[in-house]
């Protein structure tokens, strides 16, 4: 398969730079697969899982929103945050997943639903990323 360059950057650091054959981007309106030679576009990202497919392995990151720029030869992900599977503690992610799930299911005026859902989403993303690794 044809390869293209993928670069993932956040304001704090460069996360990844290398050649891949496919990328799945958590775009604002749903997951979006990109192969080499894609028409140039810019899209917004939502919190989700970014998956890059190399020759033999898949790489995953938990992304917290941002922007993506796609050109035929290069994909640049400008993420607000990005976590590698190595940085994710599965037990902690599962713990916060359960906690968030419980919060979203209880109705209480003091619970900020948007925040609870956000936490739920983030925990779920982390767990997914961890599983792509395995």
């Amino acid at each position, binding site marked *: 398969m044809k390869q293209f360059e993928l670069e993932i*950057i956040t304001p704090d650091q460069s996360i990844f730079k290398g050649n891949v054959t496919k990328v799945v981007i958590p775009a604002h309106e749903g997951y979006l697969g990109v192969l080499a030679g894609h028409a140039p*576009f*810019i*899209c917004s990202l939502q919190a989700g899982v970014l998956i890059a497919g190399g020759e033999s392995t898949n790489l995953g990151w938990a992304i917290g929103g941002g*922007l993506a720029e796609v050109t035929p030869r290069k994909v*640049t992900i400008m993420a607000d945050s990005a976590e590698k599977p190595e940085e994710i503690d599965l037990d902690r992610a599962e713990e916060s997943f359960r906690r968030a799930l419980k919060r979203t299911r209880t109705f209480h005026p003091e619970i900020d639903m948007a925040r609870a859902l956000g936490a739920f989403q983030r925990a779920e993303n982390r767990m997914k990323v961890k599983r792509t690794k395995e």
Partner: protein
Amino acid sequence: MNTRAIKRKIRSVNNIKKITRAMEMVSASKLKKIQGKLMAIRPYSAKLQTIMDNLLTYLPPEAITHPLLKARSSEQLDVPPQRGEARPTKLGGEFPEQRTGRKKNIVAVVMSSDKGLCGGYNANLLKTAGRFVAEQNETDIKIMALGRKSNDYFKKQELEIMASHTQLSTEINFRTVKKMMGPVLASYETRALDEVWLVYSEFVNPMIQKPRVTRFLPMLTAAEIEKRRASASEKEDQPKLDLPYGYLFEPDPKVILDLIVPRYIEVRFYSIVLEAMASEHGARMMAMRNATKNAEEVIDNLTLTFNKARQASITGELLDIVGGAEAMK
């Protein structure tokens, strides 16, 4: 001075030298850390910059509506802020101060250090900031202080300090700076603030820091956007694809611009904060290097005095002995 006193003094200067040298090393490593962070945001901010430049040049003016970007014309100053509580208004539903045009509300973010021992760094910066504040006769100015020195300085001047952030460590990251900036951006968006200015030290190189005053918000005035457009239409040699703006936008260009603008502003602020910190550590490094050099000079002089004094006492003793022997004859 007797030799013992000189010896004691040499020892104490030597100890000072050790301390200043250690401080120089600490500052050097902090500077390196901050410079690393400055390098790390460069790819991100460069990319944002290019996308934003393109959007600003090719989007129709009516699409550029982000409150952080849109330049305010002078009439807009007379419009009451969108949220009533942002500014006190008189009872009776009237805005008497609006008819005459209210004063502009501006905030100056002054970035100094927490600690001294960095040469003229704070003095130069605060002098510049003080001059800027003194010029603001037509506006209501508030201060956001970064660093204890700037907080103390403006407190003494009895200016209103909107917020004060001290003890910025080298472990500073984008998120903490974003939080700092949050209230300022929010009140700018609700028009409780009309302009944001930054006073910081530009990092030229570790030896040179230049105090600077720049307007941070509004980012561009209407005239500046117009100029950009004009220069872009002049040079048509830019590579263009068969797509509007050269890219497809998902969902649409306006949404992307609205997404980029706050990030761009935050990244710019973050890099300026980092630059100010780099200047501080550079200034301290140089100050401590000079102090170490001075200590060495003092030690050299004292050693010379010590040797002279020792020689003098030996000569004195010899004379005593010779004189005594002479008298015995």
